[in-house]
């Protein structure tokens, strides 16, 4: 985004807009551009009025945050507002497609959870209820449900993925490597194969959390839906 001809305050405006628009990723590109253009002009006027062309990039950005507000918060509010406005404009076709999406996500959640339990059984991990709680699909199910309900803090955020990854790696580090995989790794002198169960565990957890998050978001959309009558 940055070009060498830009003043520090223009960089600050761009940086501010980048932070704000990062929250608008669920909006159509045309709408994002419209918001960026509108808010960009307001910010440019603020920057000119406050003589930020003489300020450094950091202090200009600080001044914009002070005058205009926290970019993340405002971006979230705009995204929320867009979502609310969308709910009143859904057509019956969109309603049906959302029901279909919801069914697919729910089916995916059930299948991945079953696969997770099968994996636990196959590798001999879930030898008691506590083990199933820590290793099985319960944690990603809870995480997916929580992020789906919170919506704005969904798994599309980097920290969501990171948290699930850290939890999965921590949980699977305590798991014994199944005998046949150890034998296979020894036979081929490839210790990387020992990581396969951990990798599978991580993938399944991400799958479960993402699919449930999607299902909850789709259900909440349908619940608050007001299909057009005209």
């Amino acid at each position: 985004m940055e070009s060498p001809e830009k003043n520090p305050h223009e960089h600050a405006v761009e940086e501010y807009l980048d932070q704000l628009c990062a929250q608008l990723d669920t909006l159509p590109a045309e709408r994002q551009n419209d918001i960026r253009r509108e808010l960009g002009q307001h910010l440019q006027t603020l920057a000119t009025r406050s003589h930020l062309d003489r300020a450094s990039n950091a202090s200009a950005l600080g001044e914009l945050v002070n005058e205009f507000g926290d970019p993340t918060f405002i971006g979230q509010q705009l995204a929320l507002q867009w979502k609310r406005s969308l709910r009143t404009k859904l057509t019956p076709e969109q309603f049906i497609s959302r029901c279909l999406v919801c069914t697919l996500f729910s089916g995916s959640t059930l299948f991945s959870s079953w696969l997770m339990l099968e994996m636990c059984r196959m590798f001999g991990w879930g030898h008691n209820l506590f083990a199933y709680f820590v290793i099985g699909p319960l944690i990603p199910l809870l995480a997916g449900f929580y992020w789906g309900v919170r919506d704005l803090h969904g798994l599309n955020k980097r920290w969501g993925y990171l948290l699930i990854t850290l939890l999965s790696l921590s949980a699977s580090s305590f798991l014994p490597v199944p005998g046949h995989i150890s034998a296979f790794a020894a036979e081929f002198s490839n210790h990387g194969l020992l990581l396969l169960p951990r990798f599978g565990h991580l993938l399944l957890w991400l799958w479960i959390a993402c699919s449930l998050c999607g299902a909850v978001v789709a259900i909440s959309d349908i619940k608050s839906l007001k299909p057009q009558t005209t």
Partner: protein
Amino acid sequence: MNVERELLKGNTPTLVLAILRDGPLHGYAVARELEHRTSHALKFKDGTLYPALHALESEELVVSQWENPAKGQARKVYSITAKGHKALEQRTQGWLSFVAAVDSVIGGKSHGKPRKESA
């Protein structure tokens, strides 16, 4: 002050509608007009106006359009609609009733009922 902030947050759409009643304006001008009319008494961040403006637009209380002046940059200008005028009237009535009710409590005006005297 939190009470002031909450009151402002709840009434921002009404304030915006009241400002747009006097003529179409872009977001920056709405913010400055709000500051000017309140003599800077209400502290708010300019950015918080936009979710309110977009909400009013989705409720069809205001409409927006990009205007390209001969001089200067294009601006997105908001105008109040007939539905917006009606909504403003209702909100103003609601606010006046609320203020009168709060004022009568704070001012200590009696309801006319006799107080229970303790023995």
